C-alpha cells in the first residue's frame, strides 16, 4: 500500500470518527456540571475511613484492585524490558568512558540529589494526606538517583545502583501489596479489605488503615521499577555494543 492510499484511508477514517466524537460531545453533560454520583459516594467513603486525600482512598482502598492491576502492568513492563533489552550473544559490553562535566553542573547535581530524594520520600509519605502518593514519589526518587549520571558519569551511577537488588525490591514490593491484600481474605473479610488496622486520626500520617501501607508498597515498587527500566535503556545506549560483523 502506498503512502497516498494510506493517507486517504486516514482521512476517511478520521472524518468518520471525528463526526462520531463531535456528535457525542454535543450530547455529553455540560462541562463543570454538578452531577457526580460516584464521586460524591467516594468522598463520603473516604472521609468515613479518615483518609484526607480522597484520590488516595479511591486508589488504595475503594478501587485498590485497579491499582493492583496498574502495579502489575508496571511490573510486567519492567520484566518485559529486562527480557527485550538483554545482552544478546552477538553483543558485548564496552566500558563507558568517563565524562567531563563542568563544575557548576556537577555541584548542582550533587546538591540537588539528596533534596530530590527527600522530595520523593516526602511525596510518598504524604500520599494519603496531600496530593501525591506512591507512584509520583517513586518516580521522583528514582529520577533523583540519575542525577549522578548527569552530574558525574555512568560509572558513578553504576556504583550506587546494583540493578539486581532493585529488581528484587520491585518484586518484593509487588508481593507485599498482594500479601496485604491476602491478609484480608485470611482475616475472613475480603481481598484488599481495609478493615485490619484502626483508621487513626484524620489528617495524620498514620490515618486511613492499610492505605499508607499499600501506598508505601507502591512507592517502593515504582521507584525500583523505574530504576531498573532506566538502567536497561542506559545499558543499551551507553554500554552494550554489537560485535562488528564483517
Amino acid at each position: 500500500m502506498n503512502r497516498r492510499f494510506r493517507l486517504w484511508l486516514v482521512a476517511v477514517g478520521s472524518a468518520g470518527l471525528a463526526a462520531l466524537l463531535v456528535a457525542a460531545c454535543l450530547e455529553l453533560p455540560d462541562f463543570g456540571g454538578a452531577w457526580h454520583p460516584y464521586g460524591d459516594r467516594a468522598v463520603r467513603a473516604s472521609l468515613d475511613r479518615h483518609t484526607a486525600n480522597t484520590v488516595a482512598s479511591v486508589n488504595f482502598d475503594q478501587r485498590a484492585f485497579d491499582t493492583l492491576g496498574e502495579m502489575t502492568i508496571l511490573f510486567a513492563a519492567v520484566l518485559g524490558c529486562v527480557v527485550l533489552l538483554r545482552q544478546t550473544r552477538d553483543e558485548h559490553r564496552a566500558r563507558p568512558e568517563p565524562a567531563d562535566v563542568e563544575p557548576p553542573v556537577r555541584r548542582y547535581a550533587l546538591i540537588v540529589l539528596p533534596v530530590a530524594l527527600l522530595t520523593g520520600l516526602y511525596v510518598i509519605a504524604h500520599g494519603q494526606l496531600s496530593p501525591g502518593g506512591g507512584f509520583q514519589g517513586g518516580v521522583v526518587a528514582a529520577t533523583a538517583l540519575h542525577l549522578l549520571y548527569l552530574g558525574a558519569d555512568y560509572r558513578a551511577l553504576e556504583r550506587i545502583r546494583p540493578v539486581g537488588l532493585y529488581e528484587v525490591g520491585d518484586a518484593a514490593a509487588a508481593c507485599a501489596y498482594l500479601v496485604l491484600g491476602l491478609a484480608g481474605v485470611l482475616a475472613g473479610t475480603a481481598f484488599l479489605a481495609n478493615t485490619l488496622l484502626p483508621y487513626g486520626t484524620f489528617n495524620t500520617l498514620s490515618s486511613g488503615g492499610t492505605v499508607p501501607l499499600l501506598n508505601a508498597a507502591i512507592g517502593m515498587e515504582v521507584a525500583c521499577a523505574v530504576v531498573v527500566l532506566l538502567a536497561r535503556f542506559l545499558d543499551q545506549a551507553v554500554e552494550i555494543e554489537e560485535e562488528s560483523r564483517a
Partner: protein
Amino acid sequence: MSVLPYLVAAWVFLAGCYGLAASRNLIHAVGCLSVCQAATYVLLLAVGYRDDATAPVYSDIEPGSRPVVDPVVQALALTDVVVGATVTALLLALVVQISKRHGTVDPDELSELRG
C-alpha cells in the same frame, strides 16, 4: 463553550492517530501514541470537573467547606498515566531491537512481514 474540553480531547486523539499513521520514524510513532493517550486524560478529567470546586484533598481545607471535583476520574487518570508510561517504555525497547535487527526505524523500509 461548555463542550470545548471534550472537543479538545477528540482533536488530540485524532491528531495522534494521524501522526501514528503518517509517521516515518518508529520513535516518532511511539511519541504520537503517547499524544493519543493524552487525549484520554483530558477527557477523563473534563468529565469529572465541577464548576467552582476544588481538589478532593482535605489536608488543608475542612471537609464539607467547599465543593470538590470527582475523585474517581482522577484515580482513573492516574492509573492511565502509569499505563501510558510503561507502554511507552516497552514499545521503545522494541524499537531499539528493531533498529538493531533491521538497521532502520523507518516503517516504510520494514517489509519482511506481508502477504
